[in-house]
């Protein structure tokens, strides 16, 4: 089933991109382009073939592991994707991990103290962070830590391979921004599912046995309450690994989101096709992983 599914996805991806109006050759040559130069450029980019021929040429090379060359930079698309994806993945994985580590205990705490002042405060904070646009938060952090305090660089990126210590300084702000943004959604889900679980009889039984509240929450409630949160984390991860274009633009990170946005503006079809295929595969893989790990949290679920 996987092969026909991927083929179908490839057709959809290819066709959707071609539906966007705009000519890559014209965008490259600009308003000075004469008809002959445009025709020559289109020919050199392989755009003078029929759409079906273009698709067949592309899919044949994809199946042999070659995603083609970027129209703009003439770099191999696969090389570009690997380079850029590693940047986005670093930020996303660390941010989602941090957000989970913070949000789950907060959600548990809020559920345990439901309707108290603490609960209301935590819910309000989570809702506020959920509502704030990520780019605004990012710019605010840039202003405070980059400009006013001068503690962290405002632009640029250094890879971990070249200088790990310096690399950390460049990703701290985007990670913090993303952590805060995702914290809200995860905390609220954790709270809601914990409230459901805390109403169940076995929790009352555990309390009646004389277990501490800590043991009740962490050993008994969390395992059952975490499952829906885990699903949400999977969806968030799949979504974010497809690119955090806005944050990458604000923090000048050379990630996959920015690559995709630039490719859309320049109609860089091979890059766009490559990105969409990658994003689709990641989404499928992440959700598959989530499903595979589900029984760890809820043994009642069988694969």
């Amino acid at each position, binding site marked *: 089933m996987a092969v026909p599914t991927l083929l179908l996805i490839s057709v959809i991806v290819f066709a959707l991109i071609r539906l966007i109006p705009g000519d890559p050759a014209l965008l490259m040559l600009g308003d000075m382009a004469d*008809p*002959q130069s445009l025709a020559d450029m289109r020919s050199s980019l392989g755009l003078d073939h029929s759409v079906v021929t273009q698709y067949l040429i592309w899919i044949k090379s994809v199946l042999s592991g070659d995603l083609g060359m970027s129209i703009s930079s003439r770099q191999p698309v696969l090389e570009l994707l690997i380079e850029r994806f590693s940047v986005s993945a670093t930020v996303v994985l660390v941010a989602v991990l941090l957000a989970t580590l913070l949000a789950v205990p907060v959600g548990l705490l809020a559920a345990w103290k439901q309707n108290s002042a603490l609960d209301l405060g935590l819910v309000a904070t989570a809702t506020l962070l959920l509502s704030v646009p990520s780019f605004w938060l990012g710019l605010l952090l840039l202003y405070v830590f980059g*400009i006013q305090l001068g503690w962290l660089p405002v632009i640029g990126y250094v890879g971990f391979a070249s200088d790990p210590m310096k690399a950390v300084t460049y990703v701290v702000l985007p990670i913090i921004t993303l952590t805060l943004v995702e914290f809200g959604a995860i905390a609220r889900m954790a709270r809601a599912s914990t409230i459901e679980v805390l109403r169940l009889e076995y929790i009352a039984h555990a309390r009646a046995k004389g277990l501490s509240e800590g043991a009740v929450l962490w050993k008994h409630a969390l395992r059952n309450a975490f499952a829906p949160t885990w699903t949400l984390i999977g969806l968030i991860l799949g979504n974010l690994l497809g690119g955090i274009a806005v944050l990458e633009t604000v923090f*000048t990170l*050379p990630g996959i989101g920015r690559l995709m946005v630039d490719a859309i503006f320049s109609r860089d079809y091979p890059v766009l096709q490559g990105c969409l295929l990658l994003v689709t595969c990641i989404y499928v893989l992440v959700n598959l992983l989530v499903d595979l790990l589900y029984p760890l949290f809820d043994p009642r679920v069988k694969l």
Partner: protein
Amino acid sequence: MNSYVKTALAVALSACTFSMAIAQDKVISVGLNGDIRNTDPGVNRDDNTDAVMMHIVEGLVAYREDTSIAPMLASAVAVSSDGLRYTFSLRDGVHFQNGQLLTARDVQWTWRRYLDPKTQWRCLAEFDGRGAAKIVDVATPDPKTVVFTLDQANGLFLAAMARPDCAGSGILHPDSLAADGSWRAPIGTGPFTLGKWQKGQYVELDRFKEYTPRAEAEADGYTGNKQAFVDKVRFEVIPDSASAKAALLSGGVDLLPDVTAMDAAQLKQVKNLQIQVSPIMTISGLLFQTRDPLLKDVRIRRAVALSLDYAQMVAALSDGLSVVNNSVIPTASPYYDDTARQGYTYNLDEARRLLKEAGYGGEKIRMLVNKRYPQMFDMGLLSQAMTQAAGLNIEMETLEWGTQLERYQTGSYQMMSFSYSGRFDAAQSYESVIGDKQKEPRKVWDNPEALAILREAQREVDPAKRQPLFDKLHTLMLKDVPMVVIYNGTAIGAMGKRVEGYRSWPVAKPRLWGVKLADTSK
């Protein structure tokens, strides 16, 4: 003094010298709104690519500060009386960045490569017969002389050669190519060499220590004495303007070559920053599709032209930094004279009269705009509001830039708010708007008389004889109203106080030679 002490002193002295050397390395960082595409000059390029490449390569001629043409690698240019032969005498002792001396053979090799369609050089169309003339031969009668022979006289030959989007037709050393003929890296004669290019992040240029400057006292546009005073230029890729501003305020970059008028007004208030403004050669205005059933009537087009309060509009669009210009010839052009200064006068009564005479009954006119370039959107918005007072019913349709550009190219619009990228010769400016719509639907002015005058201006070499031709074209355009030019843009550079010697200029590209970084530690 015992040997141990001597050694210790020697080591200490070396360490001091070494640290002083590092401290003396001057690096200027410049914000670019997008990565460069390529390092092959004039091939697969965009504005940012041109801006960087013009620091590495130099052509035979180049644009001066006032956008006239002057020799660069040539010491002199002689044109034959029939305008068919251009003889370039090369300067003595010019070195490539690999240490080799520049000879006529290198010029010939470079041009043969540019003229080969396989190179996909941006400006091939200017020189292969599709443009005003065709290069039929590039000869090297001696090691210091190159002779270009054209098939017909072409007053734009030198201007086309100097175009920044052609990378100034920069002369390359053959070692720029690998043994198999594929592109390796640019080896030019410019004041900087290509350093590290971290794609998507930054491009670094290193000062070419053996650069051979011209004898003039100072730089003059892309020519003159282009001695570099910084050791390294780092072009940082910052796509977002808010992030770029933040980088400038935090000292993350030293210079932003192109900020908006609104940002400039804010940055001017900041103590440690300075602003540099220059008019540039972009042409912004409203285009009409003269084949449209409604807009084919010149009275309706003239009514639009007369219903715009240009002074108010330009003050709003440019934050008071630009002036009104109804001519296709930019104000910074040497051909901008008293005739070019003539334009449309705001006259609502006359606009209404013309509309009535034309039988205009309030039919909707669709104007295309985009938000990628805010000045185009704002120009459209202001035009729509102002023309309403005359009774015109203009509706804005906002498109994505790529889509609007396609509609422009195919002529599929009624009206559009548009900005042409800078052309540095008046004939090039007119060439962008005049033409046969059957063959090139993007052209807005399909007038055989105008086309004939333009062809004459393109062939004529003498500026004194070209001026009356441009005057005639402007007068004819004001009568025909195929478009309404509103203003030319500005290049606004914002930089830290320690940056000295940087100037914005009409070609709108940053120039980092001649720029110093003051020592702010004292």
